[in-house]
């Protein structure tokens, strides 16, 4: 039994008399700790697929099981509880709450879980350090660059170490260099904690970070193969991000990381 089991998942949108088949009978198994990229062109049904995995959208037919639980049969209430303890979400447009600073944003999932402020803020600060934002703890989203905001988003998605992390075009709003940094961080952290990452993108470069690439065309799986070029492109020089990653590798050693890329 796989960690995530998708069985003949189908989604049909009805617009008046017209039917749009967004997903056509998709079956897929994903193992725990796998980093799986859903690749496809615009309108191929990637987001629809991801949203259904996360239980945000109802299936027309078929089922999704995560850790043995049937997501498709859950009520709204059960889904909220399931998401609270099992999933993390990274958004394309970051979706940080503007009235909260970085720490509060990161601590939010723990707040929903009922963790006391002192503890959750401590954890949030640790997470922010891990993504290299120790200098930006109390900045508001509007006071941060896109890359920084997305790192806050990553910290928020991962703070409760959810078994499944969903990311829909997490770098869609970022430039190439920042994209690389953000991707490195996400992938590294998921690997470190053995989290399953479902990554949706239309960008072949990003697909390279995954263990496995599932290609979707017109709501059907066109190909599904392990990533051959698992080694990302060779970096030219030692960037700040790599410093962060190094500090992640040997996190016992306290290393000061200045983040001035943005």
């Amino acid at each position, binding site marked *: 039994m796989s960690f995530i089991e998708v069985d003949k998942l189908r989604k049909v949108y009805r617009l008046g008399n017209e039917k749009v088949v967004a997903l056509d009978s998709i079956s897929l198994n994903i193992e725990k700790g796998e980093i799986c990229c859903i690749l496809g062109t615009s309108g191929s049904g990637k*987001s629809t697929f991801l*949203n259904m995995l*996360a239980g*945000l*959208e109802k299936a027309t037919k078929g089922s999704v099981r995560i850790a043995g639980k049937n997501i498709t049969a859950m009520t*709204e*209430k059960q889904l*909220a*509880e399931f*998401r*609270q*303890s099992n*999933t993390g*979400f990274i*958004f*394309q*447009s970051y*979706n940080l*709450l503007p*009235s*909260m600073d970085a720490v509060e944003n990161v601590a*939010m*999932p723990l*707040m*929903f*879980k*009922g963790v*006391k*402020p002192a503890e959750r803020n401590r954890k949030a600060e640790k997470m922010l350090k891990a993504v290299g934002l120790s200098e930006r703890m109390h900045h508001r989203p509007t006071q941060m660059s896109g890359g920084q905001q997305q790192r806050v988003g990553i910290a*928020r998605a991962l703070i409760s170490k959810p078994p499944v992390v969903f990311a*829909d075009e997490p770098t869609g709003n970022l430039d190439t260099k920042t994209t690389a940094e953000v991707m490195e961080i996400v992938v590294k952290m998921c690997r470190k904690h053995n989290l399953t990452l479902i990554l949706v993108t239309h960008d072949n470069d990003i697909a390279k970070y995954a263990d496995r690439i599932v290609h979707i065309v017109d709501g059907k799986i066109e190909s599904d193969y392990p990533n051959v070029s698992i080694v990302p492109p060779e970096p030219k020089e030692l960037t700040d991000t790599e410093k962060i990653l190094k500090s992640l590798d040997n996190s016992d050693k306290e290393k000061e990381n200045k983040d001035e890329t943005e």
Partner: protein
Amino acid sequence: MRIIDIIGMSFKSLWRRKVRTLLTVLGVVIGSCAIVVMISLGLGMDNAMKYYLKQFGDLNVITVYGNVWMEGQSEPTKITQENIEIIKNMNNVTGLFPKMALNDQMISVCAGRGNRYRRMYGEVYGIYPEYLEKFGYKLKEGEIPENFNSNYVIFGEQTAYNFFDTKKKRNNTTYPHELPDGTMSEPFFNPMEEQIMLYVNNQNKYVEDYMWGHYESAGKSNEYKMTCVGILDAQNSGGNWEAFDGIFVSMDFANELFNSYNKVNKIKDAKEPEISELKIYVDNIDNVAKVQEQVEALGYYCDSMESARQSMQGQLASLEAMLGGLAAISLFVAAIGITNTMIMSIYERTREIGVMKVLGCKIKNIREMFLIEAACIGFTGGMAGVILSYIISFIFNKFGSSMLGLDYMYQLNDGTVLPISLIPFWLVLVALVFSTLVGVLSGFYPANRAVKISALEAIKNE
């Protein structure tokens, strides 16, 4: 999610839209203030009405007359001991005050050494001394002893003035009047300090002797040595005129005097001593009508402030309902304001609410956030409304009655001005609870809308 965090989130979002929150709160302030002020005016009117009626008698008291008959009766129903017992055992009756007037018995009174001060007749009443104060009689001097025995008397305020001094040829009478130096004239003696004698007389001989000036030997009398334990304050005894010139003794002793009189005058077929009047104290003014009905069923003519009170209250009630209705409208408008503000804020926060849902916020918690927000608006508005009401009430009470030309309503005969607006503590509590409740109720619809927002909204890029 911990409740403190839910409240924190609510506060944060209220704070973020300060101006709008403030304006919404202002609506509630006006609404709740209107209601509190209107009710306080109604309470003020109620209060004034009670004082107004009290000038004519205690509202809790029913007076039963032993010598007045109702339509259809050929003679009045006598107040008998038997019926007093029946009335005593009625529900809601907490005090009885029968008055046995010994007017026909011509009891004479003397005071001082050698019976220097005399009075041909005293208005002697048999009463239940333990209920004296309950029925509105106030003492000016002395106090009512717990064991009021047969030797005790209580004097009316001016009883001691109506004695004449047997040692003087001139100026041997006095009366209460103001002296040139502004003080009141004193009677010849202080009843609290002198021995008081009561005499039951042979009527015919007494009158004859008296006419010839043979005061010493007047009548063939039974004499009783008495001690005066108190003097009544007639002005403040609720319009009971006996408090001026009466002499109160215990009911038992009054019976003794009655029997003694019949013996001395050889009256064989004496009837039961006549109780001229019986006052009944009812625990609550709302029960007066009920008790009065029962007493009337015994065949008595009764009198109370009840019918006057009820007709006035009826008029007030409709006036209050009108004022209250006007105020309620303004609170209703405020409630719509809250709903409107919250719906607007939900439109703005659609994305945010979606994000929270995606991140695992429970539906219940989202609903709570919005309800608390609405409750906060209601509570804050109510609080400020109460404070504002106190200020308005203060201004009304200070300047209102003369400004509105309502002095005649709120000024008592003795010059005290009653408050136009009364805000008792319970009204404050009611206002706070009510405005919070209005807040919560107006928050229900928006909260349900927020709950229904799809988590997907957060992910859709605009």
